[in-house]
């Protein structure tokens, strides 16, 4: 790794028993909404990729992390005390919206599973006036991470294990039952199996592959 930047952890916001937001010093880091960083505990050789959750104009730098069962880094990060330092490399990646599409006032469909909502949270906070619909697939209603961020009617929670969301079932079931404008630009993020299935469905519904963009977490 070429350079490691140390950013002080200012607070941890626990959203559920396993999912939390790390609030770090930003230290002037410039990024585009949708990009990710490599993050790990100070002086620890193990780092993992995390999408930036905060907006480009926010004072702090935030990531949304789900503690993975038997996972290494996601467990370590959860236990880190406030005031200690984290090591960051980045910003990295190309999962961001082409400014020309924003200028052209295109319609966006954001499709996320679990913590895959993180880059969309950043996009919505960073780009005013974005014409988007966000489909968020989770198991239970308490995983609707900070849904108040999103404008009324733009956030659709799909819950597969309870009926307390806006739609009961998986994201792919939602897509099957709905129609989408053919010029919608789609962004997918999170679990690969969901992304693969959702992409195929939308392609079959007539959205060309050049309008499908994805970031795979696992």
């Amino acid at each position, binding site marked *: *790794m*070429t350079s490691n930047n140390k950013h002080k952890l200012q607070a941890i916001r626990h959203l559920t028993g396993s999912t939390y937001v790390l609030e770090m010093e930003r230290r002037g880091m410039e990024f585009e909404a949708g990009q990710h960083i490599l993050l790990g505990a100070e002086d620890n*050789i*193990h780092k993992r*990729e995390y999408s930036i959750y905060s907006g480009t104009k926010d004072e702090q730098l935030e990531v949304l992390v789900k503690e993975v069962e038997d996972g290494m880094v996601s467990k370590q990060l959860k236990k880190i005390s406030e005031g200690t330092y984290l090591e960051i490399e980045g910003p*990295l*990646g*190309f999962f961001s919206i082409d400014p020309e599409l924003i200028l052209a006032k295109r319609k966006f469909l954001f499709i996320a599973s679990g913590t895959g909502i993180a880059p969309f949270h950043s996009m919505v906070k960073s780009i005013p006036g974005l014409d988007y619909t966000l489909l968020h697939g989770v198991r239970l209603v308490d995983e609707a991470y900070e849904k108040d961020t999103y404008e009324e009617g733009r956030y659709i929670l799909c819950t597969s294990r309870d009926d307390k969301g806006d739609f009961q079932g998986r994201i792919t079931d939602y897509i099957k039952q709905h129609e989408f404008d053919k010029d919608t630009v789609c962004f*997918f993020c999170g679990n*690969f*199996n969901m*992304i*693969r299935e959702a*992409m*195929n469905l939308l392609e079959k519904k007539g959205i*060309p*592959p*050049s309008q*499908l963009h*994805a*970031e*795979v977490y*696992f």
Partner: protein
Amino acid sequence: MKYHIVQLGCQMNISDGERVQQVLEGMGFVPTDNEAEANLLGVIACSVRQKGIDKVYTMVNKWNKSKNNKNLITFVSGCVLPADREQFLKLFDMVFPMSDLPDFPNMIKQYGIVTPAGLQSLDEGLKDLKIAEPVSANPKELTLAPVEPITGQKQTSLLRPDAGIRDFWHISPKYGSGFEAYIPIQNGCNKFCTFCAVPYTRGREVSRPSSEIIGELKDLVNNGYKSITLLGQNVNSYGLDKKSDELSFAELLEEIGRFGDDSKRDFWVYFTSPHPRDMGDEVIEVIAKYKCLAKQIHIPVQSGDDSMLVRMNRKYSMEKYRGIIHSINRLIPQATIFTDIIVGFTGETEEEFENTRKIMEEFKYNMAYIAQYSPRPGAASSRWADDIPKDVKKERYHKLTEELMKHSLRYNNNLIGKELKVLVRGKDRKEGYLSALTEGKIIVRFASENESLIGEYALVKISSAVPFSTEGELVSIYEQSSSMAGSQA
């Protein structure tokens, strides 16, 4: 004082190794093939497969045992993941990234080894530093920097205070061949394909100044080199890290092409590897325009299926890739096309594999380096299930290889009866034959015991073909003015 280096991995490592050798020989070390008689033992490591790294552990344990009965120091550099670096620090005397190579003489001196050049003050040696500095500060108005000839020169100190990858590039390599050479133009990668560890071992993309690249290339050409390969993990994102302060890859090729025309010398310039995401028509147009830019393009596809490309985080669709191949076929119809493919990547379904088989048929590659997927330590996919059984991977590998052989044979059969210009590279495995490559990197072997042809261009008439190679008869040594010029292959 003798040294011995074990080089593992790709062309990039070989090219890095050439610079390490230059530093050591500049300090007065003499190379030896016999490990047992070396006082300095080193390895340029490769992390692509666990096997390669295991080899390094085995080697260093053996070397450390022989430290009991002789004076020996060891080092490791190259592609090393952070976790292995930590372990290596306990096993090797010196562990350093390639960008620290300019400081290598200092590190060796700390071990109290006195070498002829080591006696000289390092600062004094700065005077002799062979650096190609840009003549113009604006790369768009670039003129070629004066550089010394390569041959017979001994370099001593290679230090600059702001040592880093840029200083590493200032070190002239000890080229392994007198007619073929690699020029690193860029180091590192920003792409993070999920199957690859390079972004973790080599860090982010850094472009080497174009004035140095062109200086090194000019030097090589003036010394008679005939095949020069520009090397980088992502050659066509060259210059992007410098925003508008550096040439783009197409502009770099244009400079090289112009130099080729002006020099009136005969040479072929290749590059590897480009990334489809950054491949625009402007690169293909420049290749079409200049004679010295070889009409052979290596464009890794990895998979022919859009879902797999997403999982691999390749950041292009088959639509984009198809567009590139169409542009090559339209602008340089004579070009040969090579690729890289991975079969059996995590979760690859039969249908997804079938899409890859179909593109083999569609694009009719001249060569494909096909790999059966195995997780690479450090890469994102190494944490995912490697869920395609070995025998399925093998079967997919064989299916693609069969497809490839079919197209390669068809192409090579079409060469029969043609006279081709080839670069003779060495003795062939077949007794009494020499082996050569066409501009399109098609293997040509022909009967000849005349070793003085090695490193020269020749005209060969193709008489027979098999997949991946051809055989022919020597027509003549190729003369630059030869009007026949040989049709391109």
